[in-house]
């Protein structure tokens, strides 16, 4: 039956729920008469997939769609190699279904070139309630509250925060901290507009200082271990909290707890209004045959269909990117996220995450990561110094990108 068209999809989703969801997509397409070839290349947070994409382009073996995030969508657009799905977007009326910030990201030169799948919230704090009870503390409501609670936990001999030293994990924490410290506008100025003053500002310095505070309450032995391990520690009560995106829910249920119940999901104190989001999206590439173009259209159409959005996002722990999809059967934290999303959208507090490639191109993100990593691993660097470095490295990276 698969003869109406075909699409070759390059992605790095290979495990568990993600892979199953891709399977669902493949099946839905097949039922419609389209063949989807799943070309998975996991590893390195998408680094391998990005490499494969480049070599496939070099060898003239361009995929129909590839998993590409954030500003990289625009970057690829500049190469003139991308395909066009205006037809689908118009017929499904994507303008209405997607938040404007998000919609903008999927377009280039006024054309739709990419399809979004989901929305993750980054600035979550996951807390083991029973551990807090042990030290007689409440869910922290403010930064100071948080620090006080951390100190208490520390004294009680419980690891306050489970956090690996992986740079992307630290950056995720930093994402939440910056959102909590400077608010959405500051976050946007710094990480999306890359405003030099914002980057070098005192607020940024303060954020760095807070990062160091968090580090002090992090188990050093966690360095290098995966975030799953940290989540497990929280569930088991060996650690009290973790700052992590809402994909942590999967691991929480995996360890026999229910997100929202034993493990509370709260926004990073101070960032309750802000929604730092991570969107996974697929960009189309120019393909020569009609069958392949038809495949691209079907892929985009199906991905945005309510049914797929529900099934996919429920499994993945995110919320649908398409608005107006019922959240029936989604867990408490998802419901909470949806509310936060709605609120942030209207309050213009919806910002793309820096830590997950949604906010800036690779070179700039890399520069930010480098500064964060250096700061995090060397206590002799002062927060203000780090902020200054951040501004400087970001500037250099921007120049490089436009060399």
């Amino acid at each position, binding site marked *: 039956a698969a003869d109406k068209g075909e699409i070759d999809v390059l992605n790095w989703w290979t495990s568990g729920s993600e892979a199953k969801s891709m399977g669902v997509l493949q099946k839905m397409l097949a039922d419609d008469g389209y063949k989807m070839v799943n070309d998975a290349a996991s590893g390195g947070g998408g680094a391998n997939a990005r490499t494969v994409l480049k070599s496939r382009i070099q060898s003239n073996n361009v995929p129909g769609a590839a998993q590409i995030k954030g500003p990289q969508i625009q970057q690829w657009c500049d190469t003139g190699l991308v395909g066009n799905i205006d037809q689908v977007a118009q017929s499904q009326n994507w303008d209405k279904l997607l938040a404007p910030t998000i919609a903008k990201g999927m377009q280039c030169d006024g054309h739709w070139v990419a399809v979004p799948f989901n929305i993750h919230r980054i600035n979550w704090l996951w807390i083991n309630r029973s551990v807090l009870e042990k030290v007689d503390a409440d869910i922290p409501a403010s930064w100071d509250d948080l620090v006080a609670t951390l100190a208490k936990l520390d004294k009680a001999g419980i690891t306050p925060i489970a956090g690996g030293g992986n740079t992307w994990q630290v950056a995720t924490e930093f994402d939440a901290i910056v959102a909590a410290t400077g608010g959405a506008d500051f976050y946007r100025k710094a990480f999306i507009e890359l405003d030099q003053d914002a980057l070098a500002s005192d607020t940024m310095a303060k954020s760095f200082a807070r990062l160091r505070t968090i580090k002090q309450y992090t188990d050093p032995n966690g360095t290098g271990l995966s975030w799953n391990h940290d989540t497990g520690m929280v569930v088991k009560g060996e650690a009290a909290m973790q700052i992590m995106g809402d994909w942590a829910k999967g691991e929480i249920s995996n360890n026999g707890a229910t997100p929202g119940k034993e493990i509370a999901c709260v926004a990073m104190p101070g960032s309750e209004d802000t929604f730092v989001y991570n969107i996974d999206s697929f960009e189309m590439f120019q393909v020569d045959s009609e069958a392949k173009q038809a495949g691209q259209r079907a892929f985009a159409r199906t991905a945005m269909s309510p049914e797929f959005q529900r099934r996919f996002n429920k499994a993945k722990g995110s919320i649908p990117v398409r608005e107006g999809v019922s959240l029936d059967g989604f867990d408490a934290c998802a419901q909470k996220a949806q509310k936060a999303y709605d609120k942030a959208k209207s309050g213009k507090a919806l910002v793309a995450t820096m830590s997950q490639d949604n906010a800036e191109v690779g070179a700039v993100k890399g520069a930010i990561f480098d500064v964060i*990593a250096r700061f995090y691993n060397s206590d002799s660097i002062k927060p203000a110094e780090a902020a200054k470095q951040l501004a400087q490295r970001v500037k250099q990276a921007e120049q490089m*990108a436009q060399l």
Partner: protein
Amino acid sequence: MAANNPADANDSRTTAPSAWRAMLDVALPKLSLIPTGVASLLFVYGFVAWTIWLSMTKSTLLPTNSFAGLAQYRVLFSLDTWWVSVINLAIFGLLYVLICLAIGLFLAILLDQKIRAEGWLRTIYLYPLALSLVVTGVVWKWLLNPGLGLQHFIRSLGFSGFTFDWLITPDMAIYAVVIAAVWQASGFVMALFLAGLRSIDDSIIKAAQLDGASLPRVYWSIIIPSLRPVFFSAVILLVSLAIKSFDLVIALTDGGPGYSTWLPAIFMYNIGFDRGQIGLGAASATLMMAAVALAMLPMLIAELRERRHDKQG
């Protein structure tokens, strides 16, 4: 006996001097090297040239031909990550090569003493090479993690003061990488040496024993010097492995803590492909290649020259 030979079988060859066969004798060895030569010219030197060219362009996501002069190099030199990678390579490379050689040779010599279970031991020493680093990296990560692995284990035996936390200490993490890397490659170096040992004439060893040399001395003065070509192979191999060490570091530390265990290969992959700065990645590759070639050149020349000299004899 000879008289019974069919005279015709070879007479035709003697009488008809096959000049072409003589030429073939001279040409055949060279002809046989052509495939290798062409492949190497194209797939190594051609690509190297291309890389050098890329390093002088503004290439970002994809290679382009927009000339940028030495701008990429200037940026490269300003990056802390680059210098960390380079210094790491120096530390890691040196330790890795030396320790692998030492362990490999040592084990090979011990295994060469008519050991009963030689076959099994050899396989045990070799097997790390067979396992995908994607996974063994995880195991080493656990083992070297103070909270989970050896430190934890030894402390739980009652030695509470025992500390082994290299992996999570930015300044020491590269040494932890060395441990796992040595674990992986030393077995192969052992095999290389063992093969070399097996090619040495027994009677020479006997003669040395008669000369009063102890077994260690026999190895030191006679056998190991005869293994010089093997050393050469092993060093080249290990240096090449060190330069290409990628999977292991990614799996073990993912370059961390921070970027404290980055190596040039990681730098290049990360910068060139993940971050989309191919020009910069190419510049780093070019520099590293040049540096390694320069570092290896004396050894290369010495070895090749020495061999030619021996051959005269």
